[in-house]
């Protein structure tokens, strides 16, 4: 929490003024019963009409001053809270942009989104309420007691007993009910889970004739939920009656003690009324205080979660190992590379070595979870190799700046995502100052020309969020164009042509091949047909490189490749056997 409070610094003035003005308001409010007591004791008793009017005007004046102070305080509180959360949001969002891939995986996307939105909103309202109430409520409660002391010490002792008692009840009931409310939430989650499950799995449930069993399970949970709710209700229903009894019991005592004091001439009638008034003021503020404490604990918890994300720092890169002799043997060299993701027990890639010549097309194939995507993510250094090194042109890829790496490697991820905007704005992601000519060229290579030409507004056609208004295949072609426009040295297609039909897929590969002089290409795929004509095929199995060669070579010497290939082309196996 401390970690994020520094962002309140800019609003130090507001953060101090807001509670101060609140304090002022509370202070004036405490005078009201005293003025009223005077009105009764002096004005009424003496039949002094001008005095009564004077006191009446005093009451109005106190109200006006109180209003002014309060409005001022609300303004400062709102300004500080909003300013603080705005700053916090900006800092947090910026921080998230700077996290590296390892940290993005660790924190997780949905966590980041929650931190950015609901957590910060909670913190904002927490700060706002604290600034408004943390001085006001205690001041009213204890101020009322102090005022009672100034009137009569003996009567004030009733306050000394009643306040802790009230606090005990209010907080006690809250402490008891909070975990119970969590239980209610848990019960509700269960009911929700079953409802959801019955909708998403309706076909299976009906296919197995499970409707009755599910209904029975739902009803059982539903009943359990009601039981907890009624039980919590019974406890929290105590709050009002008990506090009411305490306050009014205290008033009874005050009447009794007041009467004795009046009898012996220590107190006046007006003063007794004032003391009773003070007592009734306490309850409302105590309840507010209790609510404030709950809200604050929630806000602090949210704040701590935000602070935790802010505390996630990219690890500084350690000393790079010396450049090995292998480094200069080819254009791109993987030298005994292993990768273990942070927090994972096992290696995702182990001991991978291969070399690629400039302009080659490299196919990468293997089952799901065999490490294909991990392998290609090492090329632009998105994750640093845990062991070994990746060399590009004889240099360790990690020794290049992040910008340089990104400029040289174009990657088309599995998930074809476009961003809200226009086709043009999406292409500009690849190259900020791309000309229209360059755009059409890239679109042509990516076989996306017809996609753009088919849309109204051509390059300025609107792209909805996530590119929802484009089909999967169209999106894939546009994301390929987006990567091609920056004319990368190395292009990586991570299973990014899976939604294209065979003819378009072939045309795309042809077009990419035409750039072979200037561009090295990696094609990751599950389809043997997509990679069979590559200059080199890498076969991955369970994180190990089990094959490295051309299609023909692999068919003779790589069992895993054979298995994959023949499962997709069973025809050829039979023919082979026949031969």
């Amino acid at each position, binding site marked *: 929490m401390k970690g994020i409070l520094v962002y309140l610094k800019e609003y130090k003035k507001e953060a101090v003024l807001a509670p101060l003005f609140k304090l002022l308001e509370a202070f004036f409010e405490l005078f009201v019963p005293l003025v009223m007591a005077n*009105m*009764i004791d002096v004005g009424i008793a003496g039949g002094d009409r001008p005095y*009564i009017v004077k*006191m*009446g005007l005093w*009451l*109005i004046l106190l*109200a006006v001053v*109180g209003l002014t102070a309060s409005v001022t305080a609300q303004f400062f*509180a*709102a*300004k500080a809270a909003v300013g603080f959360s*705005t700053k916090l949001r900006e800092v947090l*969002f910026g921080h998230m*942009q700077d996290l590296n*891939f390892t940290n*993005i995986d660790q924190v997780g996307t949905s966590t*980041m*989104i929650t931190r950015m939105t609901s957590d910060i909103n909670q913190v904002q309202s927490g700060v706002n309420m604290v600034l*408004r109430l943390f001085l006001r409520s205690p001041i009213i409660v204890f101020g009322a007691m102090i005022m009672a002391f100034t009137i009569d010490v003996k009567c004030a002792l009733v306050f000394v007993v009643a306040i802790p008692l009230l606090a005990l009840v209010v907080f006690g009931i809250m402490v008891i009910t909070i975990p119970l409310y969590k239980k209610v939430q848990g019960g*509700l989650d269960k009911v929700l*889970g079953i*409802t*959801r*499950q019955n*909708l998403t*799995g309706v076909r299976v449930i009906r*296919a197995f*004739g*499970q409707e009755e069993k*599910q209904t029975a399970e739902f009803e059982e949970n*539903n009943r359990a939920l009601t039981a907890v*709710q009624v039980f919590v*209700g*019974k406890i929290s*229903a105590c709050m*009002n*009656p008990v506090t009411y*009894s305490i306050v009014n*019991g205290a008033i009874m005592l005050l*009447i009794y003690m007041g*009467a004795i004091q009046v*009898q012996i*001439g220590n107190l006046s*009638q007006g003063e007794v*009324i004032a003391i009773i008034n003070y007592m*009734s003021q306490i309850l409302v503020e105590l309840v507010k205080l209790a609510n404030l404490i709950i809200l604050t604990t929630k806000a602090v918890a949210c704040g701590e979660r935000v602070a935790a994300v802010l505390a996630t720092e990219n690890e500084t890169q350690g000393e790079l190992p010396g450049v090995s002799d292998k480094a200069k043997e080819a254009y791109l060299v993987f030298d005994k590379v292993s990768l273990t993701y942070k927090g994972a027990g096992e290696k995702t890639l182990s001991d991978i070595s291969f070399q690629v010549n400039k302009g080659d097309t490299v196919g990468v194939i293997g*089952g*799901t*979870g065999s490490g294909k995507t991990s392998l290609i993510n090492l090329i632009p250094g998105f994750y640093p190799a845990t062991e070994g090194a990746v060399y590009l042109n004889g240099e360790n890829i990690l020794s290049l700046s*992040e910008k340089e790496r*990104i400029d040289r490697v174009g990657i088309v991820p599995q998930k074809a995502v476009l961003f809200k905007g226009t086709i043009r704005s999406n292409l500009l*992601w*690849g190259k900020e100052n791309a000309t229209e000519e360059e755009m059409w060229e890239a679109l042509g290579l990516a076989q996306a020309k017809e996609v753009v030409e088919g849309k109204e507004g051509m390059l300025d056609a609107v792209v909805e*969020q*996530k590119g929802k208004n484009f089909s999967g295949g169209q999106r894939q072609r546009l994301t390929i164009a987006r990567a091609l426009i920056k004319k990368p040295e190395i292009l990586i297609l991570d299973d990014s042509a899976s939604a294209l039909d*065979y003819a378009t897929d072939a045309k795309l590969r042809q077009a990419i091949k035409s750039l072979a002089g200037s561009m090295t290409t990696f094609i990751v795929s599950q389809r043997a*047909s997509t990679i069979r004509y590559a200059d080199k095929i890498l076969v991955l199995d369970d994180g190990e490189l089990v094959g490295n060669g051309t299609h023909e070579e692999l068919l003779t010497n790589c069992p895993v490749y054979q298995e994959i290939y023949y*499962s997709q082309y*069973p025809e050829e196996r039979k023919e082979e056997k026949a031969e």
Partner: protein
Amino acid sequence: MKTTVKRVLNYIKKYWFVLLLSLFLAMVTVALTLYIPILTGRAIDQMLGKGAVDMEAIFGILWKIGVSILFTALAQWVMNTCNNYITYHVVQDIRKEAFAKIQILPLSYLDTKPTGDLVSRVIADVDTFADGLLMGFTQLFTGVLTIGGTLVFMLVTNVPIALVVVCLTPVSFLVAKFIATRTHDMFHLQSKTRGEQTSLIEEMIDNEKIVKSFGREGAVKEEFREINGRLKDCSLKAIFFSSLVNPCTRFVNSLVYAGVGTFGAFLEVNGGISVGTLSCFLSYANQYTKPFNEISGVVTELQNAMVCAGRIFELIDETPQVPEDEDAVELTHVKGEVTLQDVSFSYVPGQKLLEQVSLQVQPGQRIAIVGPTGCGKTTLINLLMRFYDVNKGSIQVDGTDIRHLTRNSLRTSFGMVLQETWLQAGTVLDNIRMGKPEATREEVIEAAKASHAHSFIKRLPQGYDTVITEDGGALSQGQKQLLCIARVMLCLPPMLILDEATSSIDTRTEIRIQKAFARMMEGRTSFIVAHRLSTIKEADVILVMKDGNIIEQGNHENLLAQKGFYANLYNSQFAG
């Protein structure tokens, strides 16, 4: 709206006695709460000054106060408990009915409604409804009673002061309302801007890796900063202006207090009322605005609750699936003969889909369904399982129209493994046991072995007792499908509907799935949505589907010889 209220009352009717008790207790509470300031006032009137205090009278009054407090507290607690009881039981009844309805709604309804929407009706809407109802019970009635009661008490005691209170208090109510309407636009702008920001956050954070791989962090931050700046401005306005409500109503309250005090003091000097009465009025003046503010809140909540109730009733009122024939037959000792006779079907009236399809399947035959993605292969599954009813013609199993069979016996005669695997939250064991709850652990393991799932289940942290979430959690797509196969393997019904996996499963798991399928199909009538050539070629009948309709049927050789769509498909997809 009116009918919704009527229906809500209908649900409450069941608890009429509790409701009546609650109402009675509310009256008791309000009357006693108002009575105590009067007693306090009377006590004060007994202490006129030094030596002029009637202790005996005060004791009498204190005793009355004590008893009143006791009864108020008791009545309040019982009343609250009654309200809780009614609310949560009504809610339980409504949820129960809604869930029961979901079980009998036709798939044509469930398929078109987003799951999230239906879940939110059963959960969130019902919850909001409960909150509103509870608030209504506890505050609306006591609020109205308090206002009325205070008014009567004041008028009875002293008309002029009562008039001061009556005229001034509604002002605070008006002020609150004034501020609320003025801030509405500001809040609207705030939530709009917030929405804009959230969608940017979601878009960018979701695809953070792409953002980084294009080095776009700077541009994205800039875009964010711009929206954030706008959000700051409108948030400040909305929050500040809305936070004026409390100070303003408090101010009006203070004015009432000052007014009552001054006016009362004048009356007192003129001998109109006693100091005790004045103190009683002062305490009324303090309390009087509270129910006003509460009621305006309650009314909004109640309106909200009724809207939510309306949405739930909408679900409860949906037309259920066609009820079963009274003389519907249980399907037993299935041979597995399936006949489609001139079947026509479409999801949307007027949009033709299946037209006059006929098919004769002998017991034990394999039917492969092929076609490009989105060709409507699931339509056939929907009809066979009677998830949807045919529009024309009929489907028969062993010579009986399936509309004449009980749904349960028809469906459990089919074993179904779909590509979109669905697992239940629970243990692996429970998942496999789904269709046969009485199966022993040994039987389950046997079925898992037969479906090649045993080896990976064994390696899970708690083996067969590993708890998995609804989406299967850490299990891979292929493993999930193996579990679904084991689930069917355990009960092994006489007919099968299988959906072969597409490319997203790794080769080794895929081979296992193939083997498991092959084992299940032995001697059973099977419908297979087929992707692999071997399956297709071995099928007795191939149904070629396109745009929702069956356009060709026959075996591999026949279809190739036809040189139609199938021949084309075969050449492009498999011969390539």
